[in-house]
């Protein structure tokens, strides 16, 4: 009787948990609906999108009601410039409630996110699987004598520059550059520069040397490591990894990071050749033909070691299959590609902005269909005829 009561209680809590999981996306949808007017009024630049407010309104309604997405992608991917039938080829944001719930359920279990979320865990996993990754010289936190340690690392290893990255950071936030200048050690954080003595850290940081990237990428933009962002998914049914696409990110204004949030631009990569495509955009959805810093034409620019990079990306996904959906940040050095970091929730919106719609590749669409990841009718109907 008593063990029955415990079993019943456990079943009840399991059912409550299931209910919570089922209701969460709907709850999130309501919050997003409340945010719609704000997006409509302030997140579409009318000087670039000149189709009129009524048309924008109708497009928003279509995206919400038919594509079951939040129109956060509307402006960055410049959807107004294309026919509505093309919109279904876009997956949209991974943070959209239904998309997110389906991904968490089918391919990217929440509890394994730590493999990419915590950079120290990523480092350990890469080490265990012999995957080439950027060297980590030390892991420091507020308890350590970090200033002395950084000074020592800077001088002992003869590195001119070090990057320190928070183990739990994202979007390039709180990444600091430590460098020697005129016999003094300085810290650069975004636009601010201050002496090392003033550095205060309050979380776990990974200390890494500033990578020397491949000369070809240096010609494009030399002040930041220009990384490849590739997105892969692991197909459990067929036990293989699938490359959804890739883009190159480059810095623009002497920033030491290449993140789009920090002013960088992204350019799509043709996965078969490793050459840049004509889709080059910044965070504000402005197009580029030449690199704004070096003036080098972007279309056709060849990424060095492309085949090796693709092999590394697929190998990483296959080995780390517990995390079924990965955004890989890959740097190319003179010796070949190496992993900078992995992302458990790669920004699909920014990705499709540069790479283009992922369902243009039928294999990607088939994977999403087979794993029940297509959440609206138009995308389910693609390729049906």
């Amino acid at each position, binding site marked *: 009787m008593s063990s029955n009561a415990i079993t019943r209680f456990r079943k009840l809590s399991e059912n409550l948990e299931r209910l919570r999981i089922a209701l969460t996306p709907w709850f999130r949808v309501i919050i997003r609906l409340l945010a719609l007017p704000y997006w409509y009024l302030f997140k579409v630049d009318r000087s670039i999108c000149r189709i009129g407010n009524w048309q924008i309104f109708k497009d928003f309604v279509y995206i919400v009601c038919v594509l079951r997405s939040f129109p956060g992608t509307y402006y960055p991917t410049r959807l107004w410039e294309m026919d509505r039938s093309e919109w279904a080829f876009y997956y949209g944001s991974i943070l959209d409630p239904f998309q997110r719930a389906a991904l968490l359920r089918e391919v990217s279990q929440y509890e394994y996110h730590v493999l990419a979320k*915590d950079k120290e865990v990523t480092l*350990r996993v890469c080490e265990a699987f012999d995957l080439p990754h950027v060297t980590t010289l030390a892991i420091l936190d507020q308890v350590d004598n970090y200033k002395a340690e950084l000074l020592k690392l800077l001088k002992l290893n003869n590195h001119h520059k070090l990057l320190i990255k928070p183990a739990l950071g994202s979007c390039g936030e709180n990444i600091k550059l430590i460098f020697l200048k005129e016999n003094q050690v300085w810290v650069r954080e975004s636009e601010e520069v201050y002496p090392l003595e003033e550095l205060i850290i309050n979380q776990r940081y990974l200390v890494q040397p500033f990578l020397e990237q491949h000369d070809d990428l240096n010609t494009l933009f030399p002040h930041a490591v220009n990384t490849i962002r590739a997105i892969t998914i692991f197909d459990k049914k067929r036990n293989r990894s699938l490359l959804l696409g890739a883009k190159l990110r480059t810095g623009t204004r002497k920033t030491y990071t290449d993140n789009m949030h920090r002013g960088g631009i992204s350019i799509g990569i043709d996965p078969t050749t490793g050459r840049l495509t004509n889709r080059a955009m910044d965070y504000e959805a402005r197009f580029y033909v030449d690199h704004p810093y070096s003036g080098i034409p972007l279309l056709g620019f060849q990424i060095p070691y492309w085949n090796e990079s693709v092999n590394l990306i697929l190998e990483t996904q296959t080995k780390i299959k517990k995390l079924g959906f990965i955004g890989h940040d890959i740097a190319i050095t003179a010796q070949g590609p190496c992993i900078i970091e992995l992302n458990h929730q790669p920004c699909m919106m920014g990705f499709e902005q540069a790479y283009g719609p992922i369902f243009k590749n039928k294999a990607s669409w088939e994977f999403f269909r087979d794993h029940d990841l297509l959440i609206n009718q138009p995308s389910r109907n693609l390729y049906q005829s």
Partner: protein
Amino acid sequence: MNLIKRYYRFRSFVLETIGRCRPLVRQFIRFLALPYCYFRMVDWKTCPKTRIQVAGDFAYLFFVLKHFPANYSMHRLWELERNQWAYYFGSIYDPLQRYAVDRELLPKDNQILTNDKGLWHIMAKSLEIPTPRFFGEIGPDDGFRDRIHSLLAAEDVPGLFIKLQRGAGGRNAVLARMIEGEVVITDAIDNVRTLSEFTISKTCVIEEAITQHSEISAIYPYSVNSIRFITILTQSKTVHEIGAMIRFGVEGSHVDNRSRGGIAVRIDLESGVLSGNGLSTLGIDFEFHPDSGTRFDETQLPCWQQIREIAKETQSKFTFQKLLGQDIAITPDGPVIMELNSHPDTLGFEQVCGPLFQNRNTWEVFKEWDLLISRPVRQLYS
């Protein structure tokens, strides 16, 4: 932008509030379960107190010490003065204790690193922590029988341990051995099956069934008798050893888990000598091992200083969890870490090793991490 920032601030406030309320809700559910504990979990045959006295003790434990009184019978608290009860940490699963421990020492995100045994092996490989050889994972649909057969045929191993990837307490662990060219599977309660009769319903990990040190085998040869060593990382990143006990299987079982009938004996941390008698979960005292007749008290464990070193090194390397229950086996070549437990069973541990806060250093480390839940516990040593 401000609006979005404000929304996120509000959202994190709501989530934080829910997080804070969760242990209170759980404590309330336990309050509802108090009558069950009172009627079913007290050994009334051995408890000399009256029902009213026990009810008073329960109220003191629940409302003053903020424990669910599951440890009342287990720790025979009726034999002690109430002021001695505060030296017990109690169960790590008690809501308030668990909330504090998870908040400070065991971030929820990191718990998978030890709860998933396959992932633990990956982490151990990278951190160079000695473990039994790991042969990967098998699932119900990936030809696991062929895999087991080929591993046993090809590898120089005495046997394979097949455990649930996410199991605990030795549940569903089986031993696969090659006997006269046939693969034989033995489960925890000694049922023997052929490979074709063996099925798995969830992902499992395959490890080498290690050969243990002869001195440990002499006490009980059929299971790998492992040491449960609990360590905690201090705020200054030094390792504090909370205590250690060793567990032995009984009656031919090939697992040593106490939940499967095993016996545990306290280990003196300084010397590595067994101290006192063995105890089963039911509190039955064993001066000698029931199978081999070996006397537990004053038996010296082999490789003890090496074991301590490895336990401390593991805790200092594996900083993702600042409190670890380490299961250590002793092989002829030295100790290996079998697995790490993110929420070691402190209730059973205190039953064997005595109250955690008897050691003032342990109390101080818990205080430093703000893990002391009730006032009487906070006032110890002050």
